[in-house]
């Protein structure tokens, strides 16, 4: 089954991507990524730039409403996603628990709606 990890991070985690103090965090992430790939569960994914770089758009009565910033202003922000191929939710949760950001932020695991995707392919 396909699962996505939605990774939510604190401002401090975002900083750790570049700060000197973040070396351990980056090391942990490199190792985590490698373990995902080497174990054969990694399908794809990407980190995202900070939430402030997001732009949210809504169309109301045909008019564009553009909001500078993320969809929702929360303490922890979406920082990236990883798509995995795994036999069960339990296995996906095991991987989520190993995610370095799970210790400081949060990781949401969601099954991919394969049936919806397939119904859209014409």
């Amino acid at each position: 089954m396909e699962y996505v990890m939605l990774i939510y991070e604190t401002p401090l985690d975002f900083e750790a991507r570049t700060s000197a103090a973040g070396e351990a965090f980056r090391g942990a992430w490199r190792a985590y990524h490698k373990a995902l790939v080497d174990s054969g569960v990694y399908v794809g994914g990407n980190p995202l730039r900070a939430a402030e770089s997001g732009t949210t758009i809504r169309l109301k009565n045909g008019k564009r409403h553009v909001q500078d910033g993320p969809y929702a202003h929360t303490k922890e922000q979406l920082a990236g996603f990883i798509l995995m191929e795994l036999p069960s939710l339990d296995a996906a949760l095991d991987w989520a628990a190993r995610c370095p950001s799970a210790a400081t932020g949060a990781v949401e695991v969601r099954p991919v709606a394969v049936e919806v995707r397939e119904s859209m392919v014409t």
Partner: protein
Amino acid sequence: MEDVHRTIEAVARESYGRLVAYLSARTRDLAGAEDALGEALLAALTAWQRDGVPQKPQAWLLKTARHRLIDRIRHEQVRAASAFTLELIADEADEATSAEQFPDERLKLLFVCAHPAIDPDVHTPLMLQTVLGLDAAAIARAFLVSPAAMGQRLVRAKAKIRDAGIAFEVPEDRELPQRLDAVLEAIYAAYGSGWEGAAGADPRGRGLADEAIWLARVLAQRLPAEPEVRGLLALMLHCEARRPARRSPEGRYIPLSEQDTRQWSAPMIAEAERALAAAATHARPGRFQLEAAIQSVHAERAHGARTDWRAIALFYDRLVDLAPTLGARIGRAAAIAEVDGPDAGLALLNEIELAAVSAYQPYWAARAHLLQRLGRKPEAVDAFDRAIGLAEDEAVRRFLLERRG
């Protein structure tokens, strides 16, 4: 109010399993017994607040829960056997409460929870809930599943016990060893610390250590002639004794070989040694006794002795013969590396098929340490990365990152 709350909590913790076991032993309806006891605990909240805590709180709860159970059975106008059930409950409970004593059926309950007809993954959660009264959310946290999913699994298992008519009894002698294994496995899974070797650790922090030790003590009391029960108790006590030494005050991870032995709990080690000695008198070694014996050798360091790796390697040899689990095979490799050198240890690790360890952290940690000792740097860094990536514990991650260099 607070006091009554605390008293009820204490009584519930102390007697929950005994009451559930007793109430469900005849009906075989665990969920019904738990509901009835839950209602009795709620009723206690108001009644004890109003009238004070009764002299025999346990008997009060039993009486109240039994009434609820009987009401329910009457109300449901149930199955064929219900009249019989009803009678039994009423008779026996009357007798029991009047004697201020009721039989301890928890042993039977443990065997029901670990019955072969029940999915092995639910054995431990069932025990934690029915014998200890832990709620599904707390159990789900410990096992890293969602509370809803855990709740469903428990409900399904209880329905199976009731509908399949699984007997509340201690298995007969010829069946006992195999059935007991499942009970011990389930208790050990609750402890959850798993393998803790010289090369690394897998303290996944899922453990319900106190609960597991408590269950093992109950079991040891009720089955004094089964050496593996005491072996398991000794094993968990040895691991538990080292808990304070496993982290520095700043929260850094400290491997077994570097732990300050003054921080180990001497009373726990002493209890572990007594349990192991009592088990040994039966001259029937088993997996848990061997694992406890290995920990007992490590514990010798508390008396200033050097770790006798040769003895540890011998125990691991026997353990691998008996139960070739991944943890045992990796432990043996680490011990052999101490006796015959890292090459010999690595050769044993190489015998393990890769597919089995692709997500098994202790393997990669052990491998990384041995490769590093052999000066095979690029391979060591590779293995360290795998071990770091698979680690769940922040402190272990940091420790391995530092070791990797």
